[in-house]
């Protein structure tokens, strides 16, 4: 396995007052798509918050391209090249579609993604670019959220529950667009409730259960009964 771009070691993290993650070890290789699965409350969102800097931990718990980033603020982590597509999309309601994209790009990192590249990927956004972001449909809002993260030209992109609350047809479209998004050497970490979807787009997966890694392996070859056991914790 090549040198990991992201390395998490012994991560203990807290969600508000209670501990949500216990000694998580996890690696993402350069160019890899990794899936994180697990039931509600397993600690997936806390893991995303810890990587992106929204939850600050001890410096050496998270290493990104050799830099210890565990204790950095979210804006500093973003500058290092990690972008998050947050759960529930979380667009800026006072900003137009185009402004939402532009603010994603204001960090000024060089790379293939620009306003025109995002509009090429999601042409509907160009049509709607002057609308308020809240006037779009859920699927279109998700496109804006993905585009906003891409505009930062990240080396690692985190997707938190991108299919949550969307119609199946829209989910299909978004997953169809993913390979085009994650090309170009970008690594990705996908948190997903839909296990089949998660395994189909990823090379490897980690399953979380009650704040611990209960199973990890190659997405293509894992047995479903192993996943059920790791997911629900039942024998």
């Amino acid at each position, binding site marked *: 396995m090549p040198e990991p771009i992201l390395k998490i070691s012994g991560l203990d993290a807290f969600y508000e007052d209670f501990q949500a993650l216990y000694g998580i070890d996890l690696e993402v290789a350069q160019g890899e798509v990794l899936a994180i699965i697990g039931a509600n409350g397993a600690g997936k969102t806390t893991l995303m918050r810890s990587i992106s800097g929204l939850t600050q931990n001890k410096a050496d718990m998270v290493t990104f391209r050799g830099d210890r980033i565990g204790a950095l603020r*979210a*804006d500093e982590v*973003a500058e290092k090249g990690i972008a998050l597509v*947050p759960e529930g999309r979380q667009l800026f309601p006072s900003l137009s579609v185009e*402004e939402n994209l*532009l*603010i994603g790009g*204001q960090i000024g990192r060089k790379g293939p993604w620009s306003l025109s590249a995002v509009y090429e990927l999601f042409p509907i956004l160009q049509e709607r670019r002057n609308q308020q972001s809240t006037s779009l449909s859920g699927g279109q809002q998700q496109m804006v959220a993905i585009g906003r993260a891409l505009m930062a030209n990240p080396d690692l992109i985190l997707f938190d529950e991108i299919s949550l609350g969307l119609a199946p047809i829209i989910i299909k479209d978004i997953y169809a667009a993913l390979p085009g998004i994650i090309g170009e050497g970008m690594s990705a970490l996908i948190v997903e409730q839909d296990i089949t979807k998660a395994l189909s787009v990823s090379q490897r997966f980690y399953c979380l259960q009650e704040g611990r890694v209960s199973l990890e392996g190659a997405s293509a070859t894992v047995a479903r009964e192993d996943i059920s056991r790791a997911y629900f914790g039942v024998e």
Partner: protein
Amino acid sequence: MDWVNAVVQGTLLGGLYALFAAGLSLIFGVMRLVNIAHGDFIVLGAYLGLSVTTLLGLHPLVALLLVVPAMALIGYVLQRGILNQTLGKDILPPLLVTFGLSVIIQNGLLEVYSADPQKMNAGALETASVPLGGLSLGVLPVLTFGIAVAVIASLQWMFYSTALGRAFRATSDNQEIAQLMGLNRRHIFGLAMALALGVTAIAGILLGIRTSFDPSIGGGRLIFGFEAVIIGGLGNLWGTLIGGVILGVAQTIGAKIDPGWQLLAGHIVFLAILAVRPNGLFPRINE
């Protein structure tokens, strides 16, 4: 004709009130901070202007070139050093801390400048007037109103057409997600306070040319600023200008009826509008 005159003079006075209010509105809009010391910062701006004009012999309007950056710097340092630490889910700490700042600024000014009323000398500008269809308009009030319109227009442009304005709006919408975009909210808040106190410096110097001032008058200016913001509707800068004008006109008409009614008339109109339109006339923030 007297009544027309009262309305016109009140409108021009409203420009000054809008300048009092603009900084208040900006700070509340970006970080939901109610700055109780805002009026005292206006007075601080006036005193800094006084010092610059007397020490360097500059005209008060030229002194703006020094006082505006100085106040902006004070704003940035204050925000990064103290106010950022008070911001959170609880709205009480910033109220208490800015109330404390108000007391500190007042007493500091008292210590340095004494309680004697002061006034800035702007020479011929203070008394110059131009005739307009039977009315006589003071050049200073007209200039003040013009500056107010220019300041509001610039803030509006900054907010809706620049990257900094976009960052202000994004941070105001959702601080966490704004952090994910690489925006350090502490720095953004510092810039917002710098901008607000820069505008406040303009308000303070124009106030100091227009009337005499002493360290205790900040509270009254804070109330006028609040009333202009609330009448106009939170988060709407042009609304703030209109709010200032309504307040100014109410005061001059009140004074026309009976000189003792000037302030009371302003407050009554404010309360009346609040009773009918609790969100102000042109609200933009819906909460």
